Structures are given as structure tokens and as C-alpha cells.
């Protein structure tokens, strides 16, 4: 299976660095090497694409919200406690 994988490169090395690569957190030299590798390796390109989409999905996920009435109730309880403690 290894032979079918990536005969002339060490994909394991690339894959360990993919999060840092996608975060723009690798040096320029490594960045270029990974870019060049991805351009030639469909499997790593797929790994990068799906990992990038995973991160983007998290970054753009809308927040679950609290109903205004529920929020008021929670905030009022906190406010009362802060008053009781003399903070507010």
C-alpha cells in the first residue's frame, strides 16, 4: 500500500504539519515545499481541502442563541448576585 501512496515523498511529514500550514504558521521554505507537494499529490491535496473546509465550517458557524427572555432571566440573576456582593 505504501508504494501506491507516495513513492517519492514523505507524506507523513506533510500531514503532520497541515494544521500549521493552514494556519499560516509554517516558515516560507516549508510553505513552498508543501505547496509544491500538494500540486503533485492528489491525496494530500484532498486532505488539505477537507481539513480546510473543516476549519472554515467551525470559523463560520453561527452561534446557538439564547431566547431574549431566557437571557434576561440569567443576566438578572447574575446582576442580583453582583448587587448583593456590592460589585454593582
Amino acid at each position, binding site marked *: *500500500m*505504501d508504494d*501506491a*501512496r507516495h513513492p517519492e515523498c514523505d*507524506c*507523513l511529514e506533510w*500531514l*503532520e504539519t*497541515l*494544521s*500549521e500550514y493552514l*494556519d499560516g*504558521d509554517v516558515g516560507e521554505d516549508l510553505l513552498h515545499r508543501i505547496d509544491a507537494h500538494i500540486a503533485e499529490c*492528489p*491525496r*494530500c*491535496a*484532498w*486532505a488539505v*481541502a*477537507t*481539513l480546510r*473546509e*473543516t*476549519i*472554515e*465550517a*467551525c*470559523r*463560520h*458557524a*453561527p*452561534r*446557538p*442563541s*439564547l431566547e*431574549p427572555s*431566557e*437571557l*434576561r432571566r*440569567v*443576566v438578572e*440573576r*447574575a*446582576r442580583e*448576585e*453582583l448587587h448583593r*456582593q456590592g*460589585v*454593582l
Partner: protein
Amino acid sequence: MIPPADNSAAARRDPAERKRDREILAAVQRGDADAFDRFVERFGPMIFSFGLRMCGNREDAEDVLQETLIKVYTRLRTLQDPDALRAWLWRIVANECRMSRRGPRDPGRQVNIEELLAPREEGGTPMELPDPDAPDPEASTIRLQDRERLEEAIRNLPPTYRIILLLRDFEGLTSEEVARVLGISVPNAKVRLHRARLALRKLLLGAEPPRAAKGAG
């Protein structure tokens, strides 16, 4: 009172957002009459959504919000470094989530890292590799619009992965801030984050087989 789903993680890294945090902190420390409302408006939705995703139920999330508001606001006047606000706040939120254990929210198991890093060659290093039979790169993508699936996948992650993803990719903290919140080294935080992302990716991809595979039957 509190606007719904506001900013993305990317927006929260915006210097303008950091400036806004500093202004609110200054208002609290001056004792402005509207400081508490401004503080709640700014951080309330973040704290609640984090608590809900972390704890998995609304009751715990409400408790986390209430207790965090009390603890943070009580101590906020003593915070010296405005740039430390976010890490300090999230550390308190994370602790409240850990302490709030009302209902079943964890899958109850730690996923073996080797499950995430398959396939593993005998004697070799476990590592995440794409499925050799799957990758039609066009077909295997994660549908970003499927929010419910994302939320479910987050709920099914082990807590150690869930919390680091929430801090880094949902709330937009830097790796350094995440490390400070969790009390771990920056390299450790990066490794854990990578594994958490791989775990989430696996859950998301697993829920939607590649189109090529679907059409094969």
C-alpha cells in the same frame, strides 16, 4: 438585547474587536453605569454558545453564563493587562464548564488517537491519510451549510478535543491564548488542535460518503 450570532472567528481576530474589548474593560474599571450591560452584550452570547457546545445542554450553558458573569465581573476591575482579557475570560468559562456537570454531555470515552490516524502500517507511524478509494476531491467535500451535522460532530468529540476546537476555531483565540487558557505549552496546544481537527474532519466526512461511493451501488 443581545444580538444573535454575531461575528466569525476571523472577525474576532480583527484589531477593532480587540479595541472594543479594551474599551469595555476600561468602562468596567471606571465604574460606568452601563458597563455591565455593555459587558453582557459583548461577551454573553460568546459565553452561552461556548457553554452550550461544551456542556451539551441549555441548562448547564445558562449556569455557565450566570456564574461566569458573576466571577468575571467581580474580578474584572483588578485585571491589569487588557490584552490578557480574552485568555483570562476563557479560562474562567472553561473552568465553569468543567464544574457544571448536570447531564450527559460527553461520549464518555477518549478516542484513541490511532483511530484518527488510520491507516496504520504494521510497525509504522499512525498517520492521517485520505482514503485511497474515495478521493474524488470534488465529491468528498464537507457541506458547510449543514450546521446541524457540525454541531452534532462537535458534541461527539472527546472533551479535550472539543474545548480546544471551540477556543481556537470557533472563538478565534490564538494558539498562545489557547495554551494559556488550558495551561499547556504552545507546541502541545498545536498538536492537540491538529488531532482535534482531524477527529472532527473524520466525523464530518464519515457522515457523508463520497459521491463516487454512493453511485457505485
